[in-house]
């Protein structure tokens, strides 16, 4: 009896809350796209509700392809993508679309070898392995880079992502930059025609397959390797230094990479001796000319807040925030959004 009464009370409170929520006029901003930055975006939306309670966000992490499609179709107020939009897609837009970079991440070379020795790789070796030319762990190219490590006479089982993803985009973008052969044979995309290896679905699929397969080598997001305590390699950057992937070395890459005016940048193989070479950003996509002035104003306020305050939350969630120089340029760009 008592519990029944309690239930009724809860129900009443719930109903009242529902009524009051609809009573206060709230603006709903709709967004869709990339899955990689979803954890930090949802954190931003939560925090921003405290800053401006009159705005609510509805973000669907349906993938970058969906994000680009929906912003082109104007069914969302902002899109999100792990790769910059192509010229072809931009040409289809009814207005000018701005790329607003938010955070960055990195791909790491993860592996499974007996004893899990610390390993080093360079561009040639990684490209060779993924092109199927370096087949064994004790290949001279790998042993030359790792004189101390004990490398077995074992086949390298290459593991890559099977689902289309920003992670793959960064990976193939890097390989295309460092290997002309990769560029002509395979190219850069969210999913490609892999010359070799087995495909795992999602970071968890790739990580699982690496962990379960002795002799496996693959790429996963840095956050994922840290959380799963997987060993990952240092990679030689374009300045000739071996760099461990970390938030610092990703920020260093963003600071030294050439960032074009439209922010459709690629920070793979960035110059600078501290830069980790296999990193990439993620973008919010908004129209320069907002159709709905009220919504546009709220969106601009949020974007500014994200660039100024949201960035500070990135590190806690293992995302690399934008370096200050880039942040200033982004803020200037947000100011150019017209209502």
């Amino acid at each position, binding site marked *: 009896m008592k519990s029944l009464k309690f239930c009724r009370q809860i129900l009443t409170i719930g109903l009242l809350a529902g009524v009051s929520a609809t009573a206060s006029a709230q603006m709903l901003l709709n967004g869709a796209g990339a899955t990689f930055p979803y954890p930090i975006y949802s954190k931003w939306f939560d925090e921003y509700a405290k800053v401006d309670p009159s705005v609510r966000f509805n973000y669907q992490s*349906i993938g*970058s392809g969906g994000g680009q499609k929906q912003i082109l179709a104007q069914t969302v107020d902002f899109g999100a993508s792990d790769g910059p939009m192509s010229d072809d897609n931009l040409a289809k837009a009814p207005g000018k679309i701005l790329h607003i970079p938010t955070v960055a991440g990195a791909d790491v070379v993860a592996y499974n070898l007996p004893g899990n020795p610390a390993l080093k790789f360079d561009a040639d070796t990684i490209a060779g392995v993924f092109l199927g030319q370096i087949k064994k762990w004790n290949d001279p190219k790998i042993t030359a880079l790792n004189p101390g490590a004990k490398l077995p006479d074992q086949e390298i089982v290459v593991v890559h992502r099977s*689902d*289309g993803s920003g992670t793959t985009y960064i990976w193939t973008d890097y390989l295309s930059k460092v290997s002309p052969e990769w560029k002509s044979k395979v*190219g850069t995309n*969210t999913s490609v025609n892999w010359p070799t290896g087995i495909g795992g679905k999602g970071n*968890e*699929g790739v990580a*699982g397959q690496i962990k379960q397969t002795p002799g496996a080598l693959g790429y996963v997001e840095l956050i994922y390797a840290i959380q799963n305590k997987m060993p990952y390699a240092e990679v030689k950057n374009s300045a000739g230094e071996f760099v461990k992937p970390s938030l610092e070395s990703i920020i260093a890459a963003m600071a030294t990479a050439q960032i074009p005016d439209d922010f459709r940048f690629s920070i793979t193989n960035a110059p600078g001796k501290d830069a980790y070479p296999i990193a990439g950003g993620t973008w919010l996509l908004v129209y320069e000319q907002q159709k709905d002035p009220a919504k546009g104003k709220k969106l601009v306020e949020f974007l500014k807040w994200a660039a100024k305050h949201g960035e500070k939350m990135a590190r806690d969630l293992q995302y690399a925030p934008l370096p200050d120089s880039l942040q200033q340029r982004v803020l200037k760009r947000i100011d150019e959004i017209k209502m």
Partner: protein
Amino acid sequence: MYRSGLPLLTKVLSFMAVAASIAMEERSVQARMASPSRFGDKAFEWLTLAMALAVVVLIILIGWQLWIGSSVAIKKFGFHFLLTSTWDPVAEQFGALPFIYGTLVSSLIALLIAVPLSIATAAYLTELAPLWIRQPLVSLIEMLAAIPSVILGLWGIFVMIPWLRDYPFPFLKRFLGWTPFFSGPIYGPCMFAGGIIIAVMILPIITSVSREILRSVPDLQREAAYALGATRWEATRIAVLSYAKKGLFGAVILGLGRALGETMAVTMVIGNTPQIAASLFKPGYTLASVIANEFTEATTDIYLQALFEIGLVLFGITILVNLLAQLLLRTIATTSATRAVQ
């Protein structure tokens, strides 16, 4: 819409069959009834007819939508789409052959494993098992059907594949390695593993349906066999299994329908490599998997169109397989009928 539509298809097909058979039965019952003009009966007839038609319309709409969604790709690639093996989103060259092959082969492996197991289980449950054990066993099998496919996939990666790689696969390779099917290096994720995980997933449905069918075999059949001096095995084989052949075949087809569209768990263990290899230890790819994998991040139009066309091909294969099954069923029915006459 079509991503959820495809797995739905098998359900839809079976619903259509049920609804249509209700409608037909209703009509024949009506013919036998003295006063067919009662309003309730008429209303029921129209209602069931409308349901059956709605399902047909739904199927046509799904097919039409897939056709529209892939029209540019169909025009661009033509029959090459079905006959070539390159799947290259960068160069925008798309061929579906390895996916078609992977779908059919993984489903075939699944049937080869699941059908004997399921029918044997069903026969045990209805004919041999002591009464007290039947209900718990049935519940357990039905629980297997309730496991979400992504959980089965994770179990596949972390438990099934390491075990397969360490014990049964090397064993198979040692004794059957001389055949092309079990040759080559063993990585773990492969076509065979995909087939096994599908087998696990279709086992409950084939078992449950088979059990219902065996239960509906009249006791008169068994009693007649025993009266003629048949042993338990003979009675089960001749009087029960043979009698229920048509129904059991239907159960298998229902399982096959599910196998063709199975996505998530298969994707996680099959290795996702679009290639046609004789060895079952090599990774493969299925139609449903490539849609699930690449749909969300497909940014160019022709790429999306090609994925829609993959959906259309899967749709076509499902219908084709069901039609073939209907034909086979009819052949079985007529041969057993002639045998009965003789």
